[in-house]
């Protein structure tokens, strides 16, 4: 009952599938024909899409690219889970697990070996996955090209004067008897169509005046945009894989680095410039250990010159020379120590703050505050010996202390020991600025993802095109209206007919009101 074709098929009646393709027959043998037919079939597309979906599933169940040990463990977990469901083992009972361990482990190992051989462990880079994508692209290309002449005819080759029979076979049609002369009726039709935005073309034949007007013909290009976008995205991906690189670099705070480890070639590569990390910091939510943010202050140094500096964080990378540097990880170097000091104006009224880190052995100037600060010595576990001289009781950060020197605007330098734990226990009260010992820690490194991908903009072009194409294909429609004004036995009739490839309900409404305006029966109603 519902399996009947709807009017869409009727509208697109001269489908290329059924029509002879001019020029194709000429050089084609039976085999080429068959091949062409195979690749231009939408059935193939549907099947390929479903196969791609099925294969992708395998890849998500079996881990991708982890170590052999991880994978075997993963498979074993899966097998245990299945056994548990089947009731062979009880996952909550260690004894039962132990009893079956040999079996599950062996099965996992076998499964893993099979996966490796079948390419499942790196499925999305397996040759057959690429082959499938290539086949899919080819299918898409052939299918689209084959469809083009038909679309082109639909858009640009519409006959103005269609025979009466054709108009009468259209689903949306209406006959109107306007009264008056044929020319009056024709003028009314032309004005009406123009007003509705159909800018009609006029033709005369067999004593009848014909009009044709259309709207949104470009809507038929939406599909082409979408299909092209898929190929463009593939091309972008290929450019990225073949021309770009992706790697990882670590920079210890206070040092520069130009080497990074390239993931694909598994070699160390060298950038034509250096990245210096001046500072790395983690901020936490309140007092928790949940990182709110972490960031690195980076400086690009090329030929001994500072080219640019940027504080990078997750979601805010640094870009230099088309190479992107992403904040990806961090950690302790286990070497050296870093103190963080906050410097504020001595008088509470004046504002301004600064931060000093210990690995800056140079004095740091704070022009706003009129002071310069230098860290002279740091002791992780401060204590005084019998001569009341400071020494480190251990290398554990039990009582971090820093000896600093603050120079005021008058050039007067004063020194003081500051303690992280005992903010009030400074040894000198009359520093020209308020200095607080905020943090003590090891020197950290920042881990950066280094990416050069010249294909990425191609990807975004493709994605944009895809979304625009989908919108056009689904939510805009190509509407065509024909009118034929004829006179027989002194009676003038207007035959109005039309169709739309989408949103028929909407079109039917416009069609109705267009007809209403020409029809004296309804026209007066609308006018009055």
């Amino acid at each position: 009952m519902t399996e009947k074709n709807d009017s869409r098929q009727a509208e697109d009646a001269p489908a290329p599938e059924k029509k002879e393709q001019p020029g194709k027959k000429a050089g084609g043998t039976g085999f080429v024909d068959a091949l062409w037919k195979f690749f231009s079939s939408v059935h193939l597309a549907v099947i390929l899409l479903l196969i791609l979906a099925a294969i992708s599933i395998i890849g998500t169940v079996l881990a991708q690219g982890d170590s052999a040990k991880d994978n075997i463990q993963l498979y074993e977990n899966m097998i245990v889970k299945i056994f548990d469901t089947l009731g062979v083992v009880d996952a909550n009972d260690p004894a039962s697990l132990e009893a079956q361990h040999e079996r599950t482990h062996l099965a996992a190992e076998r499964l893993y070996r099979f996966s490796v051989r079948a390419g499942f462990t790196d499925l999305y880079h397996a040759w057959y996955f690429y082959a499938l994508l290539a086949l899919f692209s080819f299918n898409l290309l052939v299918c689209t090209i084959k469809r083009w002449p038909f679309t082109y005819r639909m858009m640009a080759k519409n006959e103005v004067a269609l025979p009466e029979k054709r108009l009468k076979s259209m689903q949306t049609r209406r006959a109107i008897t306007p009264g008056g002369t044929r020319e009056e009726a024709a003028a009314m039709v032309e004005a009406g169509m123009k007003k509705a935005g159909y800018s009609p073309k006029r033709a005369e034949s067999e004593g009848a005046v014909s009009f044709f007007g259309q709207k949104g013909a470009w809507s038929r290009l939406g599909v082409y945009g979408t299909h092209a976008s898929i190929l463009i995205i593939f091309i972008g991906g290929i450019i990225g894989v073949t021309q770009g690189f992706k790697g990882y670099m670590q920079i210890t705070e206070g040092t520069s680095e130009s080497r990074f480890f390239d993931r694909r070639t598994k070699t160390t590569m060298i950038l034509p410039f250096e990245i210096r990390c001046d500072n790395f910091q983690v901020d936490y939510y309140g007092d928790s250990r949940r990182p709110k943010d972490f960031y690195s202050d980076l400086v690009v140094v090329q030929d001994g010159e500072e080219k640019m500096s940027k504080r990078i964080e997750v979601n805010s990378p640094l870009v230099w020379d088309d190479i992107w540097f992403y904040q990806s990880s961090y950690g302790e170097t286990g070497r050296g120590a870093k103190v963080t000091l906050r410097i504020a104006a001595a008088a509470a009224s004046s504002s301004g703050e600064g931060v000093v880190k210990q690995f800056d052995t140079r004095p740091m100037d704070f022009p706003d505050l009129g002071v310069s600060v230098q860290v002279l010595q740091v002791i992780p576990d401060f204590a005084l010996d019998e001569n009341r001289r400071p020494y480190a009781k251990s290398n554990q950060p039990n009582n971090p202390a820093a000896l600093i020197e603050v120079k005021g605007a008058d050039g007067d330098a004063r020194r003081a020991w500051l303690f992280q734990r005992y903010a009030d226990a400074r040894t000198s009260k009359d520093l020209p600025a308020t200095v607080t010992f905020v943090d003590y820690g090891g020197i950290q490194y920042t881990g950066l993802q280094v990416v050069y991908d010249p294909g990425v903009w191609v990807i975004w072009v493709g994605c944009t095109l895809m979304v625009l194409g989908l919108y056009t294909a689904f939510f805009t429609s190509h509407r065509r209206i024909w009118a034929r004004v004829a006179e027989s036995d002194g009676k003038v009739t207007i035959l109005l007919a039309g169709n739309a490839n989408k949103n028929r309900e909407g079109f039917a409404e416009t069609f109705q009101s267009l007809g209403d305006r020409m029809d004296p029966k309804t026209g007066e109603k609308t006018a009055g």
Partner: protein
Amino acid sequence: MNSSLFFNTALVAYLVASVAYITYLAFRSEKIGVAATFITFFGFIVQTVALGMRWYEKAAIMGFGHIPPLSNMYESMVFWGWSIVLIYLIFERIYKNRALGAIVTPLAFITIAAISIAPNISKEIEPLVPALQSNWLSVHVITSFLGYAAFAISFGVSVLYLILAADKRSESFYIIGMLSLVFTVTLLAAITVDFLVWRLTGVPHPHLFAASFSSPRAAVKAVSWVTSGFFFALVWYGGVQAHDKVAALFPSLKVLDDVSYKTIMVGFPLLTIGIVTGAAWANYAWGTYWSWDPKETWSLITWFIYAAFLHARFTAGWKGKKTAVLSVVGFAAVIFTYIGVNFLLSGLHSYG
């Protein structure tokens, strides 16, 4: 005042609306139908306010004004329920037919109820890890969930289609439709029971289905299985017989087919934008727009299935039952992308 009061009000409204829609179907009383629409609309407005409040509460805690409340399972599920109602109300207006409300409002109710009672799902406002603080993420999540909501409606309609369009019981389409129906209804009913028991007794649940299939009490367990078995038998035997009577309640098969397809036509571009903005986000956060991680891959699988649906329908000339099956399969993929990946795949990956 906080948002949870509003959420609960909306939840109750959806429950009442579900009952009203079903009553409307049974008695065909126009008044009840209008009331059902009104109650749904009321629930929707209240939930919209609740979402806005939660956004505000979140911004007050974290100072991230631009991040909508969509960063964990609870928030996204609640948003999904909201989207389902939104898309349904629009379709109800366009088609001037409210029969489908009897399917959609229970779905919305249960979605939100389930997540409210599910254990181990935090309802707290949580601080975001740095990678989640992005505008791309907001667009990504919003469009994905609107898309999922459209697919949910298509799924409901397609199941109905499969059952109503069948001529005989042995037809494979009928079996697929019926199993989907029994499975979904049983699942949703069990969750509703959980929810009601929790609300009435005030005792929190140790896990899902604690008041039915996995109750510690053998009797409850047995009753649950027997009930669902009975339901299965009822649909299995009665489905084809009651066919014409049931069919009379719903829009024609042609309309069902059309709704199923139109909702996918809305969902597909939304899912596409969801995937694209997800890729943009990943690229901006990590420098990789596509890394084949399970979640990404499953969203692509879903996309493939719906692309197959569209082509099967437009160009390969499939209609009705065959495409309805694709819609059911597509929605299974949606659910797996959304929930299954978190619980099954990453679960497997995480305890090695």
